[in-house]
């Protein structure tokens, strides 16, 4: 037993050492390596895998087109966080301390970023979230950027569309109160609803793992609202939508979702019960334009499945990083940080620049989607 353990340990140590010894001296000359921290194992692995796919696709295209800094190759080390913030921090420390990357892309979740951000920011390493939508991410420090549109930029577009196109005036609001992502999304929704002058009839909460929402929905049914907003992950949203129709809330009462509802899984679980649900998205697979069509087809060819929003955001981010390295003229974090402020990029998500606060400057690219027969369509 102890022999087995020591052998496994020796093998692991061996590969650890050979990895660092073999890679660094040769590659350091011709390669500019950036790091990424994504969820590649565990229940949320789908997000990280999509992001990794988008990053690698863009990297290979950039390298095929001549790389960065006049002929150097762009390299990428992706570390797994397993969705755990401690492991995300360990991964960040490894990327910064050992691999000496000038840029860290990720981590996947806002919670992870709240733990990783202070560490990389202290070390003055540029960190770019591609999927972190919560409030306060870029306020962590001057080296923290994000290319993901925060919920506070997307939700107002969705609510405005609901108001303008369907005459929504009174709403009920629901959210999962035990999860940072859902709560933060709700805060943005409430602020947007108040700004648009919508009447909030009631605010109901539930737990992310709840299965029964009949108490909340029965109350909402009695209030005769025009629409119901919901901020949660896709599984509880599917449950709420299904039960709402079972309880007889009419189809004319639309659901308006946050970022969590923007998943094909919603249609798979809830089927036609989800029809009419509105959600804003920074990207949509059927978005017109040559860049996007090319991205969708090459992604599909390479990975055998459709890209999602996360892959698209990651794809654009890799291009933005490569451009910033070129503008900076060196793989130096300070210079790349300066260069990122000058970003002016037109990718699959649309035109992209950063604000002074290191957030995406425009939400022009946001499209409002509506669910029909279990699939998303662009709301015309």
């Amino acid at each position, binding site marked *: 037993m102890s022999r087995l353990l020591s052998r496994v340990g020796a093998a*692991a140590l061996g590969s650890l050492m050979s990895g660092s010894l073999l890679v660094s001296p040769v590659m350091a000359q011709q390669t500019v390596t950036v790091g990424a921290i994504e969820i590649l*194992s565990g229940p949320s692995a789908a997000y990280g895998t999509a992001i990794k796919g988008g990053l690698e696709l863009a990297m290979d295209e950039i390298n095929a087109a001549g790389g960065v800094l006049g002929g150097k190759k762009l390299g990428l080390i992706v570390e*797994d966080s397993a969705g755990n913030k*401690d492991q995300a*921090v360990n991964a960040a420390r490894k990327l910064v301390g050992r691999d000496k990357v000038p840029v860290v892309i990720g981590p996947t979740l806002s919670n992870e970023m709240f*733990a990783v951000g202070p560490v990389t920011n202290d070390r003055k390493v540029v960190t770019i979230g591609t999927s972190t939508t919560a409030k306060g991410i870029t306020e962590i420090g001057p080296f923290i950027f994000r290319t993901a549109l925060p919920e506070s930029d997307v939700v107002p577009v969705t609510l405005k569309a609901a108001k303008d196109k369907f005459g929504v005036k009174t709403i009920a609001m629901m959210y999962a*109160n035990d999860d*940072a992502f859902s*709560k933060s999304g709700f805060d943005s929704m409430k602020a947007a609803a108040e700004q648009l002058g919508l009447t909030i009839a009631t605010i109901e909460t539930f737990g992310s793992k709840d299965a029964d929402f009949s108490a909340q929905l029965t109350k909402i049914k009695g209030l005769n609202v025009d629409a119901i907003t919901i901020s949660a992950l896709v599984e509880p949203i599917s449950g709420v939508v299904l039960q709402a129709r079972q309880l007889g809330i009419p189809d004319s009462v639309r659901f308006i979702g946050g970022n969590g509802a923007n998943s094909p899984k919603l249609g798979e679980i809830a089927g036609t019960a989800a029809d009419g649900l509105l959600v804003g998205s920074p990207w949509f697979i059927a978005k017109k334009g040559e860049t996007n069509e090319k991205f969708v087809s090459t992604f599909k060819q390479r990975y055998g499945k459709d890209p999602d929003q996360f892959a698209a955001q990651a794809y654009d981010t890799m291009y933005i990083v490569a451009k910033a390295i070129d503008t900076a003229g060196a793989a130096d974090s300070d210079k790349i940080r300066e260069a990122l402020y000058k970003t002016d990029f037109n990718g699959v998500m649309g035109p992209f620049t950063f604000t002074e606060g290191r957030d995406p400057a425009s939400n022009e690219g946001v499209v409002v989607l509506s669910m029909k027969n279990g699939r998303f369509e662009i709301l015309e």
Partner: protein
Amino acid sequence: MDGMTMAEWLDDFLFTYETLIHALGVHGLLALSMYCVMAVGQLSLGQAAFMGIGAYTGALLTLNLGLPFWLVLPLSALAPAVVALVIGGPTLRLSGVYLAISTIALGEVLRVLYINAEWLTGGALGLSGIPRKADLWLIYLLLFLAVLGFWAVGRSKIGRAMEAMREDEAVAGVMGVNLPVYKMGALVVSAMLAGLAGCLTAHSNSFIGPNEFGFEMAVTILSFALLGGIGTPIAPVIGALVLTSLPEILRPLQDFRLVINGLIIVVAVLFLPRGVIPFRLRRAP
């Protein structure tokens, strides 16, 4: 090490593994907190809950009142100790799996409390921006003192009574061991250790959330003691070291990391049912 000085290398090394080294120490304290109750034959799963109380107490005292860390630390140990005293009365009448269930409930109640007391705890968003004040030497000094303390107690008359309780509570009672006092004492000390660990975590991660101190953490802490063994105070600490460092050592295996990690644990539990370090403490003559 092309042109790098030893100091630079050490600096990078420490930076790379700082969080891990912190976590190893903190998890060592948590393992001892588990050991403390298991040493008297109790199966309490409240350690994560006590850790949470310590973490929130420490973070709130630092963030809202700006108290110095040398004051925050003992207060963070005191708060869970008080809670342990209050809940100890009714719960310690239970034993075995019933005690485990009721202490799991404590963790759940607190989780719901953290989520809903938004004005104080930040709700689901947790508390962020906690200054990183938990120094490396402090964590390991506390761990060293705790191991030393348990070792000294374990070799004394108290330790003998504890071992008697662990093997057979009824017999120990008949022999004159004051069972309620020992059980309560173990619970309070274990709560204090967990509280310390929580406070140190909060001040080394700079972020805490309500879902970190739930059932999953409780089971993780239990597994430290199960893997290491509870024969000596050093055994659960070794268990914590192994379980905490394994995912990082296996990082080069990439996709197979968690598979191998799980496999090693299963094999260890199958072949070493009394823990990695099965020895028992020698007694003072």
